[in-house]
């Protein structure tokens, strides 16, 4: 092996081309991974700050002054406007920077070329550009945390007129401008990335890798990228019009509003228009966040149940169904905007249909687990945890999807509980599962298992402790994004529950340091990984331990079978990788597979887009 690797590097790239402005998808994936983890730490810390306020409203926070400065007022409390900034930035960071860029950026980049059998992405250059656009957008967003008027504070959905009028609140000033700028660049970055993912999956598959043999991870990444390609430009339009309203005085979203007795000069704008545009992205966005996690889960659950995934085609069909429906349900976020109730019931109907493909997926995961020889690796535990969150959060989605019920529940903690379970926690678990599972491929070393188990149990239990009580608070009618529970007599009774939630949040947050320690320690000191530690079928495990740019020394292996030949009756081993031809496994072939032996020569003779004949 060492010999082969030496042979690979016929031309050494300078350091900055190899690790900084790299065009190698594996390096870019790591860049996204480290950035995602960085943002996750920031995003989670912000949430701890506002949980302190909610759980312990009388707490003296002077000790935070060295970091937060003037945001802690004279009496040692969190400034109410800063509270709004915190929830806004927490949402923005988690949804876009961690679970969109961090998750897709890491795993689509890393796994697409490795699992479809390509040397690299279709355009390494655009891929590099995608990361650096993301980097610039990150810098702007990060910088906005430190400006005097504070970052954007109108919620992650930045509804106008609040966000459109700099005089509305201090966070609608420079902070909002930076938010919009940062997001515009972010969208460009995601489009560049997504275009590359789609092109690579469709055009750069290795010989024999037909769509019906693609691992479910790749299907998920492909559909995610398509969702992004179609919906992100719409958000860009929405943001552009908002920028014009803010900076040039147009009236797309602003109408004749009176502020302090004085009319604005604007005429005839419509704030609801923004909500339509925003949610046309916003709803697909929640699936952009979730689908990659589901893909990762499919792969990990099949591998570690040592069973073929149940209903491979049904999984694909339900993902396509979800992706399609995602574009025609956006108005379920707008039931209370005064929309025509008849229109509301149409959107309600469409929304509830999503429960069908979602249920198919949940059922298939459980059936795959059923009577499998389950290997409980940390990645497997996180995947099972994801399925659990997906189900418990999905159920509340069905409740919210009913427009009549949503009138009561809209903008309460019930919604917060719903989407944190089904989107936040589930996708975060997808990310963590992916890191645990592919760590040996990323760094050639293993992570510590025991720490992984402890990390899992604290996080899993912690998340339920944090979000389950929120359902009750929400049903009782407490609105989200309020600075304080103690202002209203009716909600004082929730003081204890909130304290409990905050304590659970702090515990869950602290448990993440176990992961961080494990992660960074293992990069340098972890046990050296075997080539195929989980006995998995997909192509990435056929590469050398530290694949060079180009992934495979010599030819890219052709593919003969699907990715889920686990525990096949009659087979010598309990897994048969995708690149093993049927002619080598007569003992386990089914009759129709014997017929496929004749096609092997044809597969091998196929031409394919080998981007560079000589890996380097």
């Amino acid at each position, binding site marked *: 092996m060492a010999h082969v690797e030496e042979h690979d590097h016929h031309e050494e790239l300078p350091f900055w081309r190899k690790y900084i402005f790299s065009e190698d998808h594996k390096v870019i994936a790591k860049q996204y991974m480290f950035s995602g983890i960085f943002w996750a730490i920031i995003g989670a810390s912000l949430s701890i700050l506002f949980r302190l306020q909610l759980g312990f409203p009388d707490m003296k926070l002077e000790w935070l002054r060295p970091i937060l400065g003037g945001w802690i007022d004279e009496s040692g409390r969190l400034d109410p406007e800063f509270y709004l900034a915190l929830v806004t930035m927490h949402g923005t960071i988690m949804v876009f920077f961690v679970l969109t860029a961090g998750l897709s950026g890491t795993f689509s980049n890393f796994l697409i070329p490795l699992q479809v059998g390509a040397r690299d992405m279709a*355009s390494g250059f655009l891929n590099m550009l995608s990361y650096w656009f993301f980097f610039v957008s990150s810098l702007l967003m990060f910088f906005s945390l430190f400006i005097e008027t504070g970052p954007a504070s109108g919620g992650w959905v930045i509804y106008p007129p609040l966000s459109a009028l700099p005089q509305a609140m201090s966070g609608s000033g420079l902070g909002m401008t930076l938010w919009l700028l940062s997001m515009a660049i972010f969208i460009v970055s995601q489009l560049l990335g997504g275009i590359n993912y*789609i092109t690579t999956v469709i055009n750069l598959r290795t010989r024999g890798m037909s769509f019906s043999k693609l691992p479910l991870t790749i299907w998920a990444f492909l559909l995610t990228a398509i969702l992004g390609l179609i919906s992100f430009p*719409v958000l860009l339009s929405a943001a552009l019009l908002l920028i014009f309203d803010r900076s040039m005085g147009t009236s*797309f979203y602003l109408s004749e509003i009176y502020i302090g007795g004085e009319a604005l000069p604007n005429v*005839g704008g419509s704030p609801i228009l923004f909500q339509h*545009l925003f949610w046309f992205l916003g709803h697909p966005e929640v699936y952009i966040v979730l689908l990659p996690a589901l893909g990762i889960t499919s792969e990990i659950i099949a591998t570690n149940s040592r069973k073929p995934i149940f209903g491979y085609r049904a999984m694909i069909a339900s993902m396509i169904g979800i992706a399609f429906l995602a574009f025609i349900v956006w108005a379920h976020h707008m039931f209370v905007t005064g929309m025509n109730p008849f229109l509301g019931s149409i959107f309600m109907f469409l929304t509830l249909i999503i429960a069908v493909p979602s249920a198919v997926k949940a059922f298939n995961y459980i059936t795959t687990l059923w009577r499998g020889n389950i290997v409980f690796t940390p990645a497997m535990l996180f995947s099972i945890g994801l399925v659990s969150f997906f189900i418990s959060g999905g159920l509340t989605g069905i409740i919210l999807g009913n427009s009549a019920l949503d009138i009561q529940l809209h903008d309460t903690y019930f919604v917060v509980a719903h989407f944190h379970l089904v989107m936040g926690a589930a996708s975060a678990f997808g990310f963590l599962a992916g890191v645990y599972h592919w760590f040996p491929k990323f760094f050639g070393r293993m992570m510590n298992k025991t720490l992984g188990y402890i990390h899992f149990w604290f996080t899993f239990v912690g998340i339920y402790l944090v979000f389950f009580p929120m359902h009750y608070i929400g049903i009782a009618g407490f609105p989200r994004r309020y600075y304080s529970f103690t202002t209203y007599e009716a909600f004082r009774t929730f003081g204890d529950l909130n304290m409990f939630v905050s304590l659970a949040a702090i515990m869950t947050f602290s448990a993440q340091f176990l992961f961080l320690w494990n992660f960074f320690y293992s990069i340098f000191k972890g046990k050296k990984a075997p080539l195929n530690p989980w006995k998995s079928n997909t192509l990435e495990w056929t590469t050398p331990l530290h694949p060079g740019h180009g992934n495979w020394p010599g030819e890219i292996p052709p593919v003969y079978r699907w990715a889920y030949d686990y525990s096949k009756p009659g087979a010598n081993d309990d897994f048969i990788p995708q690149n093993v031809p049927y002619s080598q496994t007569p003992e386990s072939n089914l009759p129709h597979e014997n017929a496929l032996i004749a096609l092997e020569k044809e597969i091998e003779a196929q031409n394919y887009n080998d981007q560079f004949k000589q890996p380097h």
Partner: protein
Amino acid sequence: MSETVNFLPVAEEPEETLSMNPKKFILWMFVVSIVMLFAAMTSAYLVRRAEGNWLEFKMPAIFMYSTVVLLVSSASMHWAYRAAKKDDFGVLRTAISITFAFGLAFLVMQFLGWKDLVAQNVYFVGNPSGSFMYVFTGLHAFHLISGLLVLLFALRAAFKLKIHAKNLTQIEVCMTYWHFLDILWVYLFGFLLYFN
């Protein structure tokens, strides 16, 4: 390698059986994202228009002429492609240059159109019906400028003799993008005329 290729009859050149040229595919993906950008804009226009309080004004006549200019540029773009296929380098350069010139002329005319709007007292800031007019034309012009850059690259390649019958990818990408920008404008123009 090159020797064997010389002996092979053209018909036996290996074909790419699995896929499309990734560069062309990437272009189509960009086209999809631009389409979505404008789809969002035009739907926003319709949603907003349905709410009433909508200023009506006359579409500047010069947009009609600019449309014709852009259509002509598309024709000459096609001419360039035909020339490239026949290895007719002189015509290729001329045709690309003509396309470029007409593209520039289009931009100038769009700008004159804005002046006409101002003369009608339709400003960027004001009733959204006017603002949308500026946004549509402006965004399209922005993309057209990117098209002009692509054309410049093609022109440079044409002078370096890098575009020929065996190497058509670049000119094909260029042509597809240019035709797309043309169709996009025709759509926007028709849309604005119809829903004014």
